[in-house]
């Protein structure tokens, strides 16, 4: 190959803008923003809910309040452990090329799919604990099954909210699976 032709080819490749498609760069930037927002949300929940139950337990040091605070912090710890584990290596690309960007987005999508399953399980455990705790606090003498079904607008709201949240998780999981399929197809094109 001619000396200067070779250099021109290298220069063309070097200066090409196609190294990482703009759409992928935007998606990675969006995921980084998403991670920051989720982290801020987790910190807020930890401070407000965790701090709130501790405050309640300090003001009313009854066994029930201590159980509530302990359970809340257990849930918070489990959520943080999952978040830190699943978010490891998702903050930035290990390299500045298309393969690394797609790989990062694939790992993001898989982490989010795992998070929907984890979120549903943790939410079910939290709701179960909270309902039992509220039942024991407010209506210990009533039959549990009747209390759980349409005994008060608050309980109705809990069920409606739970159904909406689970519906959201199912929709979100489908969306992330579609994203994952798109990314895997992008790799094969």
């Amino acid at each position, binding site marked *: 190959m001619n000396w200067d032709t070779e250099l021109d080819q290298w220069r063309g490749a070097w200066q*090409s803008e196609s190294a990482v498609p703009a759409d992928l760069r935007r998606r990675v930037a969006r995921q980084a923003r998403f991670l920051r927002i989720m982290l801020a949300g987790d910190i807020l929940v930890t401070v407000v809910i965790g701090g709130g139950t501790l405050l309640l337990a300090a003001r009313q040091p009854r066994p029930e309040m201590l159980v509530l605070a302990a359970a809340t912090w257990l849930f918070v710890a489990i959520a943080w452990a999952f978040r830190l584990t699943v978010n490891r290596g998702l903050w930035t690309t290990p390299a500045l090329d298309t393969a690394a960007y797609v790989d990062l987005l694939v790992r993001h999508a898989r982490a989010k799919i795992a998070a929907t399953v984890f979120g549903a399980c943790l939410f079910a455990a939290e709701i179960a604990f909270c309902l039992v705790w509220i039942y024991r606090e407010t209506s210990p003498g009533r039959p549990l099954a009747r209390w759980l079904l349409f005994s008060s607008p608050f309980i109705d709201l809990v069920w409606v909210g739970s159904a909406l949240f689970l519906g959201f998780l199912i929709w979100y999981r489908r969306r992330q699976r579609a994203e994952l399929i798109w990314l895997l197809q992008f*790799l094969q094109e």
Partner: protein
Amino acid sequence: METDAAFADMKLAPLDRATLEHEFDRLLAENGPGVARLAASFTNTASDRDDLLQEIAMAVWRALPGFRGDCSARTFLYRIAHNRAIAFLARHRGRFAAAGGEIDAPDPAPDPESGLARAQSAERLRRAVHRLPMLYRQVITLTLEGLGYSEIAEVLGISETNVGARLSRARQLLRESLENRK
């Protein structure tokens, strides 16, 4: 170049802040992609590249009032960028030494039928440049950005003869690296 003409005028009168900002924006707008590629060739991750780019921009902003037009604006910018990159590497040498100075992602095999083939070709070149020893990486990155011997000599503070010798060796190493990875 329009920027060089503007910088030639800068010798005549001290710059007010508005002019300085205008020239700063123009300098980075005209050379931004090239400086970003130079920063990428010295770093392994997007966040490191962005950090280095920010340092370069700040250094250019600080140095701009003292620029007297004794070289081209592009040479002025690349000299600062290059110096900041070396300082950045020195400051983070533990991290880059641990990574062996190489990008640690898998090297994607080229597929002629793939829509990514062209991008992968450019990526292979970037990886090969990244693997070169610093002495040669400096010269080849500036050459690939389109700087001439005299400009590279000014940026690196070496003679043009030395630039030619280093570039010749850099090209040989780059060619071997690209052929070995085919």
